[in-house]
């Protein structure tokens, strides 16, 4: 084992973290280009300014590909965590472009996909639900005596949903090894978080549920890594559900269509100055953990990787429309419209239905 430079991480690991940050940014920038070119099926979401929260948190967990590791339920603002858990970059593009080759074969969008071997459980859109689901996943870890934890990302205003409160309380009373990452980016679409909650920090809500919590600067990847490492340690030690609040800012609109004209430009500028990638770069150079030329290479590699896989995904086919009937049930196939088969009275199984 090579030497720890900080928080038990050696140079390779620190550069891995750096790569994760720049990869997320490059992937989303590439996605934006694809959208401008008309390749993206639906809406796209950016996590600029929030990359350190995703990367630092996932980096602190036990990531495996054989179904034995920790679990992650990301949000669209935590794509970096998904990549660290082994979510394929090419699948990210395939999902946004509705490609047949993607993990949901065009049926679902963006980061909404599942890979249990890797511990990835993509969310549904209704906010708060994944906290309930992760409570059950981590309950199974507890029941089976496994030393695994489950991490759920939730936007700050997902905390207003009933599902969030019911899920969190269930997890708390069952002492489930669940780590809730509150993405306190200060906005819920156009509504400021301070208009959605009376507390100044979500750790106050954690206290209300009797669980452990920490609030951390979400632009500081090392701080996030260390806070989540502590939370995971507590959860694994049987101390039950933990919350880590990530304090940062949603620097772009809620989604691509949102010009964010309700945001105070000075406030925004302040957060642009606290860019998590710039901050980490500065730290790496100041501490002498690596040279700028090394970082430069990592950035170029991430950009090229994104370009390459985006091109690959763009060239792949969309699903055949008729696939829409498959996968609703495990054992039967939804009927094709009779207007596209042989008519309403056909008794022998039609060709399309098989």
């Amino acid at each position, binding site marked *: 084992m090579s030497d720890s430079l900080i928080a038990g991480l050696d140079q390779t690991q620190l550069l891995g973290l750096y790569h994760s940050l720049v990869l997320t940014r490059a992937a989303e920038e590439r996605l934006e280009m694809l959208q401008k070119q008309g390749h993206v099926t639906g809406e796209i979401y950016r996590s600029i300014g929030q990359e350190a929260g995703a990367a630092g948190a996932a980096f602190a967990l036990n990531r495996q590909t054989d179904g034995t590791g920790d679990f992650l339920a990301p949000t669209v603002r935590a794509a970096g965590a998904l990549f660290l858990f082994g979510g394929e970059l090419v699948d990210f593009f395939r999902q946004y472009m509705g490609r*047949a080759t993607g993990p949901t074969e065009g*049926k679902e969008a963006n980061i909404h996909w599942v890979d249990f071997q890797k511990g990835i459980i993509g969310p549904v*859109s209704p906010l708060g639900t994944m906290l309930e689901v992760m409570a059950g996943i981590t309950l199974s870890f507890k029941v089976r005596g496994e030393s695994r934890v489950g991490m759920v990302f939730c936007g700050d*205003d997902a905390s*207003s*949903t009933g599902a969030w409160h019911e899920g969190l309380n269930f997890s708390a009373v069952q002492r489930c090894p669940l780590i809730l990452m509150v993405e306190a980016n200060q906005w819920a679409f156009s509504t400021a978080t301070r208009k*959605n909650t009376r507390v100044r920090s979500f750790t106050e809500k954690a206290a209300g549920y009797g669980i452990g919590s920490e609030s951390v600067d979400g632009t500081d990847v090392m701080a996030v890594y260390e806070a989540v490492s502590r939370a995971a340690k507590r959860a694994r030690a049987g101390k039950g559900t933990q919350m880590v609040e990530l304090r940062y800012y949603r620097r772009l609109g809620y989604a691509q269509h949102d010009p964010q004209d309700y945001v105070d430009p000075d406030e925004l500028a302040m957060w642009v100055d606290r860019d998590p990638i710039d901050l980490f770069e500065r730290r790496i150079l100041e501490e002498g953990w690596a040279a700028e030329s090394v970082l430069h290479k990592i950035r170029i590699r991430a950009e090229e990787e994104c370009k390459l896989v985006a091109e690959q995904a763009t060239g792949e086919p969309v699903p055949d*429309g008729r696939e829409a009937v498959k996968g609703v049930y495990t054992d039967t196939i*939804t*009927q094709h419209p009779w207007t596209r088969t042989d008519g309403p009275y056909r008794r022998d199984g039609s060709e399309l239905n098989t």
Partner: protein
Amino acid sequence: MNQPAPEHLKKTARGEPVTLLEAVSEGLFEEMVRDDSVFLMGEDIGVYGGAFKVTRGFLDYFGGLRVIDTPIAEGGFTGAAAGAAHMGLRPVVEMQFMDFISPAYDVLTNYIATSLYRGAGPMPIVVRGPVGGGNRGGPFHSQNVEMAFFHTPGFKIVYPSTAYDAKGLMKAAIRDDNPVIFEEHKALYRAPTLREVLPDEDYVVPLGKARTVREGSDLTLVTYGAMVHKSIEAAKKLEQEDGVGVEIIDLRTLLPLDEDAIVESLKRTGRVLIVHEDTRTGGIAGEIAIRLNERAFEWLDAPILRVTAIDSPVPYAGSLEDYFLPQVEDIVTAGRYLAAY
């Protein structure tokens, strides 16, 4: 509130055509001006004017006591609407996407829909929001929710297909003392072909009354929402290519269901095709068919048929969603089949 109405909400007053979305906005706006017990709640409806901008300008005009930006808590604010309604207010709540009405399902079905029957008084609440597919929104931004509420006695359900109806139905819904689920199809919101000049007067379209979109003697086509427009296209084709005269009935209100309008038309045509964008099993076609069996079986010359979405979640990829949704060609095929029956 002495300030003049925002310019973009005075199009009808200026004699300019409005989209379906603008018609909804005008309907809401005029009701709020007319009756100060009407107020709005929903996510991002104030500062932002709503995800689709239906309530743009409302916050400035009516202020924060009547246009309330809520936390993301559909169950919570819909329950609060019930309490406000008890006290004589008339809440109109927006679901950012109707798919997210589900957290409010409990309070809607168990509390609001039963209130009058339990002796707790009427519930003059409108729950409105965007519905429907075709926008590549995937499983959670595309649903039609009518049938989730159709089965619960106590609701009225409205689903307009034109700007005129949208405004008139919105006014009627707000004035109604029963809880109304009001569905607005996203693909119709800004459809340029739906722009029309509305009468510059305080009109309502009564709930529970269907509209005959076009007349025809060979086939009755019952539909609503976005499918009205696909049905019109199909009817034109059937007329031109097959000489089949299609009468289209736009339900406009799904509950109460205007049975009389359908039966009357059926008695003239003898054939009924039901078209809905909602999925097949448990869709409204089943209910209409059995009612026609009960009331007009003797007049039927052919089986009642339906064209609907397939029984699956709404898929994301364009190719899948197009296959999922009923298309003009499906309606033409079904119309041909029935006409020849």
